[in-house]
């Protein structure tokens, strides 16, 4: 959806071709995401869980790790876009739109990861919440950190201020991600014996492996599709604000004219 412009025919043609290409890509992504997710759902129900996972909710292995992966991918995308906005030479408001989209998507997926993890935990440990579990703890901390980033974004401000705050908030949060991950992991493994350096490689092959890999692919495609659309929404929001701004500017200028024509200065 692009506003019509007074440009020479070639530029118009090129522009509408670009728009069409983008729309095609987005449609393809969306369709593939749908198909892949449907496939994963079917496979997840029919394929037995791999041996090393136990518990009633063990089939969540076909979903839960993938959502965790997407949330990390979203946060990584978020910080890359934030840095691109912060760096003066590459500063474009488009990066802020992408960063904001990634933050929102990341919060959604990390919440989902947390909920699915709790459900899985209920099946495995018998309780929904176990803080000592490294994954649960780090997911929760990540959720809180990035809720903060999203909160920063909602504050009323000019686009530049909002972009700056989001970018800096994302940077401050992201550098903490590895620190949280490793410290919480150490904490979890503390009282499990002195030589728990690496867990044995879980054996998984055949259909379960294929299904799990497929779920990663499916969710990644979904993530890309969501990114495109959420970024567009952010851009449209700003465009609306821009239109509002133009209206406000005209009204502001009118203040001057009315006063001038009314009472002599």
């Amino acid at each position, binding site marked *: 959806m692009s506003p019509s412009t007074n440009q020479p025919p070639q530029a118009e043609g090129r522009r509408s071709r670009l728009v069409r290409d983008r729309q095609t890509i987005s449609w393809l992504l969306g369709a593939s995401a749908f198909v892949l997710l449907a496939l994963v759902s079917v496979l997840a129900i029919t394929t037995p869980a791999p041996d090393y996972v136990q518990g009633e909710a063990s089939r969540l292995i076909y979903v839960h790790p993938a959502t965790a992966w997407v949330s990390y991918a979203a946060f990584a995308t978020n910080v890359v876009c934030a840095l691109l906005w912060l760096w003066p030479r590459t500063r474009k408001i488009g990066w802020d739109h992408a960063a904001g989209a990634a933050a929102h998507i990341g919060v959604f997926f990390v919440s989902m990861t947390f909920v699915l993890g709790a459900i899985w935990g209920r099946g495995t440990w018998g309780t929904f919440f176990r803080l000592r579990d490294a994954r649960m703890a780090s997911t929760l901390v990540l959720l809180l950190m990035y809720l903060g980033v999203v*909160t920063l974004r909602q504050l009323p401000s000019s686009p530049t201020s909002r972009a700056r705050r989001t970018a800096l908030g994302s940077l401050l949060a992201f550098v903490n991600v590895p620190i949280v991950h490793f410290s919480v992991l150490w904490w979890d493994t503390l009282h499990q014996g002195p030589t728990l350096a690496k867990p044995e490689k879980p054996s998984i092959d055949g259909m379960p492996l294929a299904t799990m890999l497929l779920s990663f692919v499916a969710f990644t495609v979904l993530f890309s599709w969501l990114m495109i659309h959420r970024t567009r929404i952010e851009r449209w929001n700003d465009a609306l604000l821009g239109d509002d701004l133009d209206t406000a500017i005209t009204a502001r200028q009118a203040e001057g004219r009315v006063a001038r024509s009314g009472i002599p200065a």
Partner: protein
Amino acid sequence: MWNDARVVLAKDLAVEWRSHVALRQVLPFVFTVVLLFAFGLDRVLVNDPLVSGDTVPVAYVAPGVFWLAVLFSAVMLVQRSISSELDDGAWDQLRLWGLDPAGVFVGKAAAVALQLLAIEVLLGGVVCVAFGVSVPSSPGAWLLIVTVMVLATIALSAVASCYAALSAGIRVRETLLPVLLLPITVPLLLASVQAWQGALTAETAAGWAWVRVDAVFAVVYVAVGVLAYGALMEE
């Protein structure tokens, strides 16, 4: 940068010297927090020899109470650090005088760190006495205790100063700053508590492993502050 840092540090310390906010408000607050923990987590915390029942060994609980109280006082100190600039518009002037933003960061974070250290020393004594902590005798344990205190204080001051600057221009800064800052400090809290538990239970080797987290946290957030404070100061 170091010159600017020194000037800002001197100014912040002069402001504290003249207003005694850390001394008269934050310190009593910190003591109150510890007392509230004792009341709120009765049975868990209070080791009363005349009362039988489940209590957690003090060596595991005292570090947690201490570092939580320190976290809350850090939030107060850094709010004060930034509001002393914002109240009369001095924040604008800081930007306008052409100070090196990295210098401003180092100066302000250092001022917060020094005040925090002073509070921690006093608080440590109080917690020991109040909770009946048996003080370790080995110099190794003391070295661990002091190292963690210094590193954690630097780390906390750095990250808190970053968030204070980030929220400086926001009207709801006072409520927003803790919301943004506290989740970030989780690994720092975890590591410092674990390290001190190690020191108090004579498992110093395990404690030293946790010092690494404090050190990494400090390095990372001092670096971020130095590099990004210019952007953080802008509106």
